[in-house]
């Protein structure tokens, strides 16, 4: 699994200030997919409920390339049927659907006790819609149009949601975070963290080896409901990385240019 992520184009630690959002080179993505397939894990199954065939085809092709088994429903009622019959590890539901509204589909499923994680897709407005989507039982919300890497990162995050753990000490490789004492250590070295840096590291350690996009970090760590004009995430992440990865140590936080960040134990 780790090798899969070697495909992400790594940047040197000083590369924190991203100059814009760019997709990773396609070959990098391809490598990861190949690696996933090679490991012979069961393919995660997704249910996509999306009325626009062209969009649906694109999403299916893209996710198919990345090792997902995607089935498709073109309207809310069909989608509800497929969701009830089970089998999907996660669902992608468009907000506006013919027949039955996307939110109604989710509410119905939740009412029936079906807890499959749902990513809501919408071309509708920003914050209020997002709140509505999450309130009706969605687990994440993505506004159209979106970068494919963003979609993939969020689906992986949904599939690998951290279980509620009773542990009060998080560990990733040599990194140790004590949630009670609010201290961080890498090996024997103590790391001094500001409150927000602590929260950021905690979030990342709960989701080690996962691609975390800037938007996800903004929403989850900073609890931001807006996109700041400045590269806030990069600057704060740069600081954290500076503290976690000292020059003589193997880097644990990787900046995937234009996409986001991954924390993993040094190889």
């Amino acid at each position: 699994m780790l090798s899969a992520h070697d495909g992400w184009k790594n940047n040197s630690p000083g590369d924190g200030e991203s100059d814009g959002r760019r997709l990773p080179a396609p070959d990098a993505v391809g490598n990861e997919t190949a690696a996933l397939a090679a490991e012979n894990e069961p393919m995660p199954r997704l249910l996509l409920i999306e009325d626009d065939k062209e969009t649906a085809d694109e999403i299916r092709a893209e996710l198919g390339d990345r090792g997902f088994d995607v089935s498709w429903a073109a309207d809310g009622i069909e989608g509800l049927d497929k969701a009830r019959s089970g089998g999907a590890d996660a669902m992608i539901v468009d907000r506006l659907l013919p027949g039955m509204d996307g939110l109604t589909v989710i509410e119905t499923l939740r009412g029936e006790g079906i807890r499959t994680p749902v990513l809501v897709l919408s071309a509708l407005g920003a914050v209020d819609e997002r709140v509505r989507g999450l309130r009706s039982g969605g687990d994440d919300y993505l506004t159209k149009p979106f970068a494919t890497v963003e979609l993939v990162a969020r689906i992986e995050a949904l599939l690998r949601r951290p279980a509620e753990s009773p542990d009060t000490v998080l560990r990733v490789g040599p990194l140790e975070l004590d949630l009670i004492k609010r201290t961080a250590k890498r090996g024997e070295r103590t790391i001094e963290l500001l409150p927000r840096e602590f929260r950021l590291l905690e979030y990342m350690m709960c989701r080690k080896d996962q691609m975390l996009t800037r938007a996800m970090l903004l929403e989850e760590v900073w609890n931001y409901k807006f996109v700041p004009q400045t590269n806030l995430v990069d600057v704060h992440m740069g600081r954290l990385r500076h503290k976690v990865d000292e020059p003589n140590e193997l880097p644990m936080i990787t900046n995937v240019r234009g996409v986001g960040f991954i924390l993993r134990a040094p190889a």
Partner: protein
Amino acid sequence: MSAASGSSSVRLPDFARTTTFGSTLAIASAFVLCTVLLFGFVYWQTAAYLTSSIDALITGELQIFAAEPPERWLAHINERLDNDPRRIRIAGLFGADGHRIAGNLESLPGGLTPDVPADAVVVRVDNQGRETEKVRLATERLPDGEVLAIGRNNDEIAGIANIVRRALMLGLLPAFGLAVVIGLVLSLRARNRLLEVNRRIQRIVAGDLRERLPTRKGNDPFDQLAVSVNRVLGEIEALIQEIAGVGNDIAHDLRTPLTRVRVRLERGRARATTLDELRGVVDQSIAGLDQSLTVITALLRIAEIEHSRRLEGFSQVELAPLVREVGELYEPIAEDKHVSLQVEAADEATVQGDRDLLFEAVANLVDNAVKFTPKGGRVGLALLRRNGESVVRISDTGPGIPEIEREAVTKRFYRSDKSRNTEGLGLGLSLVGAIVKLHGLRFTIADGPGCTAEIAFPQVN
């Protein structure tokens, strides 16, 4: 007329159907009725007075007669009648069997009660001939059975009735005519005015939003109404123009990056010779598209804030922690840019509001300040109290915002946000404006060393 009278399709002239004309007619009729009643009363009172005077006269004479000895009667009657140049006196002496003994009364009319004056129609005979006339007459039966009748012509009363009738005619008809004419003129004027208003409204409905209702110098309710309606029309026109302006702004904001993307793609397609070159072009194009999407997101966000009715979702927000949090968030960014960010949050104010939005507003201002302040400059973020208000002040040593654009960004954010033309300023200030407006706060941009932006919170606890 007789043919039409049974039909309901009788068409009155247009003016006769107007409300004004109808009320004029009603008022004129009421006026006529009152006048007729008044004149009738005057006539009735006058006639009663005259009748009672005549009655007093004739009963008086009867008594004088009765007091005289019978041998004087004939002489008295003749004397009385001779001494009557206006020929208004009536007198007669009749025998017990009813034959005339003396006087100018041809016969005694029947149905008279002795001593009670009454109206009677009698025939007068004298040297000028014989004529029938209406009189007031009283009789008295004398001791020896003869009947004495004394009367007086009461043509005077008829004369007065005539005078009253003529006065009524002379006064009433012109007055009524005048009322009708005035009603006609007023209703025609009102009708013309309404027609004009209606015409203009039709034009407004047809889309001519610059049209206004006619007003006169006067201050009658109609004018007041027209002025109010015109004010409403002005508001509508401004709003429509604003929407058009918003449309133009959006078009401009979106077309600029999209045009760049298009040109880039065309050039890339024509010129790129290697896959890497083509990828470079595509990467740049995606960045351009992302820029357009950012604009759309920001515009939607502004619209969302402007149209939200969040007031019920407001809660108590402590400003000092909020300001410190923004400072903490931007401190590393300022440091990276070698700009010093000084945060002072001394005031312990609590305000009513949406914390996320207020945070967004302050963060946007700090974001701008840090972005536009050159290396080595200073950005100040302060929460202070001034004249009972809490003020969040963001000052910087950047280039500032030119006066003209400052007006534009503080006034009508969404519409005339000229600041969008300033490279990189983005829609941030428009967002701040929308948030400030939603909270009913005051936002000002002033000169500092660079630029000083202030959000003033009135009514703080």
